[in-house]
């Protein structure tokens, strides 16, 4: 008794200094914390670099150089047969009008560089401008015979000069722009004729040809993506949730359901391009649905998203405590009442999160869409309404891919701008998911 009490404290040592073992354990803990911090640091740095480079490259695509001048709308040139209708007017008719107006303004300001030709001055104007001007005239026929103030889209090189992409040195090596044009541009900026404005057209315009990066927009891609998301949501959510509820709550546990389970898990890991081939073979070649259409794209993305939604939904259903099921069955609810009155509402936040993650995945998917023709160059908007689902369209990520394939460096900015738009949509969807989840959880 006395021996034991005398021996014990001596063996343990003082509490005021750490013994070897404690030191080792504390050191291990500190090391582990450092690893964790390091990992988070790497992740955050990568994210910041990514966002930074995209924003740096892409934000400028929402700004665009416009030439603002008074343009005369001569009746004799626009209404050649004098019947008051603009039936014979083409872009070739209006192009000289724009060019003459600009030349007149340049000469009025007396800023024409020595020996600069008229056609060189006209080259500042974008090749797309006559078409937009023609639309403007058609919508404002009452202005004919008067002067109209109009924002003319500037050539991509001039836009690049304003954004610092094009310089005097690069112009010397560039056959698409002359140094005189840049000198003139500087003068026009000083006289407030050329300025940068916010560029809604980038969001609403359709794609433009390789030579007119300044006019290229995302309108068709955004509509196409929207239509596809609608198809995915309408098909994948009910099918996915129904499949999960059956598998989780009703299906007997036997070898057959085990096989289905394993296969669903495997489907989630199938490379997405394989779904593209499947879609090409089944929906286009066999079922004869139109190529490049959001309907086919949506169907392919539905197949791709289903496993994600099923896995998320089943996890959400599994996380509902069995005691809730017991309670409902105990008061005499049927299996279906138990599921729909109690289990499903409790699992809803998880199901929503899974669905939105699946949708976001589908929104960012490129590979399967390449195979079903959505990579095509589409200038026409798909119809608003049901017919639009079978009209040709592209999708946002495919548009990014398309932009990056083009030679003109102006498309680098466009591609980054498209990525920003895509990210904004993804952030928006996630915000909606979080909002809905909060709502549901408050209601429990």
């Amino acid at each position, binding site marked *: 008794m006395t021996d034991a009490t005398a021996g014990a404290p001596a063996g343990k040592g003082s509490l005021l200094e750490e013994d070897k073992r404690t030191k080792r354990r504390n050191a291990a803990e500190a090391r582990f914390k450092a690893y964790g911090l390091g990992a988070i640091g790497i992740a955050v740095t990568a994210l910041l670099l990514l966002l930074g480079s995209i924003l740096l490259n892409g934000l400028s695509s929402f700004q665009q150089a416009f030439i603002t001048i008074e343009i005369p709308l001569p009746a004799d040139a626009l209404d050649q047969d004098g019947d008051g209708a603009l039936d014979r007017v083409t872009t070739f008719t209006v192009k000289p009008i724009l060019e003459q107006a600009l030349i007149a303004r340049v000469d009025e300001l007396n800023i024409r560089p020595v020996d600069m030709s008229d056609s060189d001055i006209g080259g500042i104007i974008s090749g797309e401008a006559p078409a937009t001007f023609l639309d403007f005239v058609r919508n404002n026929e009452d202005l004919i015979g008067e002067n109209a103030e109009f924002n003319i889209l500037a050539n991509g090189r001039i836009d690049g000069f304003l954004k610092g992409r094009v310089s005097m040195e690069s112009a010397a090596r560039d056959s698409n722009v002359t140094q005189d044009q840049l000198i003139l541009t500087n003068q026009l900026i000083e006289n407030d004729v050329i300025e940068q404005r916010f560029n809604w057209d980038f969001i609403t315009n359709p794609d433009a040809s390789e030579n007119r990066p300044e006019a290229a927009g995302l309108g068709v891609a955004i509509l196409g993506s929207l239509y596809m998301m609608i198809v995915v949501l309408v098909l994948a959510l009910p099918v996915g949730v129904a499949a999960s509820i059956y598998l989780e709550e009703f299906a007997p546990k036997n070898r057959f359901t085990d096989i289905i389970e394993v296969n669903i898990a495997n489907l989630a890991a199938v490379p997405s391009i394989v779904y593209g081939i499947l879609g090409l073979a089944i929906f286009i070649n066999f079922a004869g649905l139109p190529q490049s259409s959001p309907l086919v794209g949506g169907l392919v993305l539905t197949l791709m998203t289903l496993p994600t939604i099923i896995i998320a939904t089943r996890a959400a259903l599994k996380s509902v405590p069995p005691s809730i099921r*017991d*309670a409902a069955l*105990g*008061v005499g*609810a049927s299996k279906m009442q138990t599921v729909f009155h109690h289990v499903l509402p409790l699992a809803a936040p998880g199901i929503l999160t899974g669905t939105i993650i699946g949708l976001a995945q589908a929104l960012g998917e490129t590979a399967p869409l390449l195979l079903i023709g959505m990579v095509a160059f589409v200038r026409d908007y798909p119809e608003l309404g049901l017919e639009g689902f079978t009209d040709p369209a592209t999708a946002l990520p495919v548009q990014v891919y398309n932009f990056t394939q083009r030679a003109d460096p102006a498309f680098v900015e466009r591609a980054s701008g498209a990525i920003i738009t895509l990210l904004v949509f993804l952030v928006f969807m996630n915000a909606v998911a979080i909002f809905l989840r909060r709502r549901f959880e408050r209601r*429990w």
Partner: protein
Amino acid sequence: MEDMHVMTSAMSTQNDTKISARNVQVYYADNHAIKDVDVDIQDKTVTAFIGPSGCGKSTFLRCINRMNDTIDVARVEGDILLDGEDIYDRKVDPVQLRAKVGMVFQKPNPFPKSIYDNVAYGPKIHGLAKNKADLDDIVEKALRRGAIWDEVKDRLDAPGTGLSGGQQQRLCIARAIATEPEVLLMDEPCSALDPIATAQVEELIDELRRNYSVVIVTHSMQQAARVSQKTAFFHLGYLVEYDDTDTIFNRPQDNRTESYISGKIG
């Protein structure tokens, strides 16, 4: 098994038989969990099932309202008669059965809904109320019988999960009796409660005896002695002894019962 026949004949019969089980066997896959159980449970009586962990008392309890149906691998053989009708008959819908045989579980499991909705859910799905006023009446009556009305009457819209453990369990009892069952099964209803809450629930069980046949599984022999009139002792899947509670605790016939009661086994 000889001793059991002795007991069955020795059983007093002051009340009608509500549930009678004959030769019941339960298997979980290959595991034979309940073996040859014969028992007659009387109306308006509290019957306690006692026995060491894993002896099958909960399993047998869950047979009475077919909760074992929800377990894929469980298989029940033999006859269980409720008022002379075989509840395992092919024609019996377990949902209808469970409206007659209510159940309270070991862990309080209120729905994550308001107190009112918790109690109103059963009557709603069984169509017991014609209108809102009717339903209000049923809810109030059930909560009063559950001995919890005074504590919650001012906050019927508050979440049932926000109550204390003892209140939650009484809410679950109120929920179970709101559907007007004839039999109330309780699976260790006090094991998650403190002594004060336990006393409240026990008092409530004694009240309920007037209208229902109550079957309670308990780990606490004191509780069985306090609340029940009849006690059944299960051991290793067998019903060893079934008799008046007094007899079981004071003059047990079987020496396994005696060993358990005196704390030598279990």
